[in-house]
């Protein structure tokens, strides 16, 4: 029996934003719909279709689709396929758009207009949006929209996506009720089945248009070229990149100290207030040992996460990221990957989930799989709290080698360990598979540099705060409370000699798990804390807080986890745990994303298996070596 799917589409006309990568579609989308989709200055930020509602002046509304950028309607990668499918009316759950808004970068018409011609051939009503018209004007390019409209046979409006009110002209045009009935002179100059001939013919047409509009001179961005001469220099470029990355990790520690102290102070104060004000009941322990000790222990790391994102946002906004990918291409190539994998991998430093999704921009299927496979090895921001906790407990706060903070250096080393681990895995895959030795295409656009806007950075950081606090108030809170219950019940029998937690379910589970983890130096408290860490890595910190708060006889103080572990754990255990965190497959949502992106259980199972083996092996070696040199 055949199943017939019936899709019921929401009402309202559907308008799709189509254009070359990085021409400002998402910026325009955000401006029109008031949403905050991620934008950055490189090609391939948007990898899936996003929908928003635009309210028009006449009281009506349209549905607006933001689509991944594409150079042509012959898709090469998964994200480009999304766009082509929508335009062909083949996208699942979406009708063919009623109107295509062809967004073109006004500073680069020669490349952008070819896509407009291709869209026009599809026969869907279209409007051309000359975006970045302000930048074009500043470079001395005067584009006459009326003349361009006459040449293309399509209506043309101008816009400035980055300015409030920059899309007024487009809004006004969309508000006219007539656009749906409008017919366009549709006479394809040349139509060919041959991809190459078609592109060439379109190019001729565009050349002709530009010549007639007196726009065929090349006006490059001089400042970008000057910057590139330094930043892409074969020797100076990599040095600058190293210094930039190094400074970020130094700043992670040195800038965060003051705000972290403040948050710590607030947590301790509220714990003490609660202790004094509330009656001695079981739920007081839940509130203080569970919620305040647990959540306070995680919120304290918010400043560091924000500092990390501040730098990532600046790198993204300026357009430096693809340059970094260019500089690292040779290194990536030596392990069988291309610079194309760099941006997905870099996104994974924030969180592996957007990183794995960004891998859609990689045209080569094998490279995409390898990138997905190693993305979890990039140190995501959820690992930061764990690293910081252990580093501040076990690594002395001293300066070495002329003023470098030792703690910052160790942090840098941990990030590096993840990267090196990922490279080794990629290299092994390269030598083990025949397709790994083929040369990978690069063909990556290097955008014009832009000054980062304060507004975009502020929005980006604020979104991070929201995501983080939602995690803290949601999954982390739930897990923390659940762990408190597990660790408090059943209550110890009469005349118990050991601490109460050891008789609880959590104590039993911890001791059982400790049999597995004992060879790599983890005690039962750590083994137990790793379990809720599967749902969110940061929870390991709060879980340790809860477990130790309940273990310590009667002293209800949040934020004393650092001295406790410094006293109770050997340095070998701490090093082993740090190593575990570099490699371990601890995040269930990452595995779920891999399953979704690869469409099967094979890849997530492979990922979880190899990461577990790698983490266990590496921790074992580190622990045994540390014990052997006398740190046990």
């Amino acid at each position, binding site marked *: 029996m055949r199943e017939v799917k019936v899709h019921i589409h929401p009402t309202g006309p559907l308008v799709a934003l189509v254009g070359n990568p990085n021409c400002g579609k998402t910026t325009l989308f955000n401006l029109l719909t008031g949403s905050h989709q991620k934008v950055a200055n490189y090609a391939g930020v948007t990898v899936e279709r996003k929908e928003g509602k635009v309210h028009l002046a006449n009281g009506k509304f349209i549905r607006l689709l933001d689509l991944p950028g594409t*150079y*042509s309607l*012959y898709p*090469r990668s998964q994200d480009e396929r999304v766009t082509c499918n929508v335009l062909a009316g083949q996208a699942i759950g979406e009708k063919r758009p009623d109107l295509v808004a062809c967004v073109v970068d006004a*500073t*680069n018409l*020669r*490349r952008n207009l*070819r896509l407009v011609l291709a869209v026009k051939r599809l026969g869907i009503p279209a409007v051309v949006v000359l975006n970045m018209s302000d930048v074009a004007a500043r470079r001395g390019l005067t584009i006459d929209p009326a003349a361009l409209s006459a040449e293309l046979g399509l209506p043309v409006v101008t816009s400035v996506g980055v300015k409030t009110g920059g899309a007024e002209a487009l809004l006004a045009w969309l508000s006219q009720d007539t656009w749906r009935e409008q017919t366009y002179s549709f006479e394809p100059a040349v139509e060919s089945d041959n*991809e*190459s001939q078609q*592109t*060439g013919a379109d*190019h001729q047409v565009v*050349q002709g248009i530009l010549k007639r509009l007196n726009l065929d001179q*090349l*006006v*490059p961005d001089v400042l*970008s*070229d000057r910057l*590139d*001469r330094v930043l*892409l*220099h*074969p*020797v100076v470029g*990599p040095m600058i990149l190293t210094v930039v990355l190094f400074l970020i990790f130094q700043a992670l520690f040195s800038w965060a100290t003051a705000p972290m102290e403040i948050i710590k102070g607030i947590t301790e104060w509220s714990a003490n207030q609660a202790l004094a004000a509330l009656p001695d009941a079981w739920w007081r322990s839940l509130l203080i040992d569970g919620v305040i000790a647990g959540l306070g222990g995680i919120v304290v790391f918010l400043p560091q996460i924000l500092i990390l994102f501040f730098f990532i946002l600046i790198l993204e906004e300026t357009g430096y990221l*693809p340059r970094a*990918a*260019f*500089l690292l*291409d*040779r290194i990536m*190539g030596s392990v069988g990957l*291309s*610079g194309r994998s760099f941006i997905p991998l870099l996104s994974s430093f924030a969180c592996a989930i957007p990183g794995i999704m960004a891998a859609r921009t990689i045209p080569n299927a094998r490279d995409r799989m390898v990138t997905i496979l190693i993305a979890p090895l990039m140190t995501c921001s959820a690992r930061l709290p764990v690293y910081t906790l252990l580093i501040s407990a076990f690594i002395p706060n001293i300066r070495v080698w002329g003023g470098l903070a030792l703690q910052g250096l160790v942090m840098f080393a941990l990030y590096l360990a993840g990267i090196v681990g990922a490279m080794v895995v990629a290299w092994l895959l390269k030598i083990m598979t025949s397709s790994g030795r*083929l*040369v*990978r*295409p*690069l*063909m*990556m*656009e*290097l*955008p*014009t540099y832009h000054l980062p806007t304060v507004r975009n950075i502020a929005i980006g950081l604020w979104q991070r705060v929201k995501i983080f606090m939602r995690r803290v108030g949601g999954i982390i809170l739930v897990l923390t409370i659940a762990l408190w219950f597990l660790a408090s019940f059943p209550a110890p029998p009469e005349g118990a000699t050991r601490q109460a937690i050891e008789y609880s379910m959590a104590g039993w589970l911890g001791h059982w798990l400790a049999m597995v983890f004992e060879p790599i130096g983890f005690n039962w408290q750590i083994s137990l804390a790793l379990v809720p860490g599967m749902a969110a890595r940061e929870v390991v910190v709060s879980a340790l807080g809860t477990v130790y708060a309940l273990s310590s006889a009667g002293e209800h103080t949040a934020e004393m986890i650092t001295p406790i572990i410094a006293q109770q754990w050997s340095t070998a255990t701490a090093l082993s745990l740090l190593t575990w965190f570099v490699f371990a497959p601890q995040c269930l949502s990452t595995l779920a994303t891999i399953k979704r992106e690869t469409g099967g259980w094979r890849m997530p199972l492979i990922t979880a298996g190899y990461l577990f083996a790698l983490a266990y092996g590496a921790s074992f070696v580190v622990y045994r070596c540390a014990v052997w040199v006398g740190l046990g």
Partner: protein
Amino acid sequence: MNFYRGQIAFKRGIQFFDVTSTRHTHPNMNLAEAPLNTTWRVLRISPTEDSPERAHHLEEIGFLPGELVCVLAHGFPGQDPLVVRVGLSTFALRRDEALSVLLETKDADA
């Protein structure tokens, strides 16, 4: 110069000497060998057997006959990858990719 080109062709084991383009002063120039910061015109893309898709892809991002191109930077080591200006866009290309972009002198009529 000829010696150098021969070396490259030998190393890659492919034939890229091309009889149709001998009318210009640099008959067999390609993007991978163009000196830094010199402007050339794209003659055509020579499709390679191992990846026919690549030629289309290069055309789509703007490497079309008559377009002005200029190599802005080389990677290190081995002058790979390259930063190339084509028209008004800047792309990072692998040396291998640049080899299939055949060039003619700037003043040749497009």
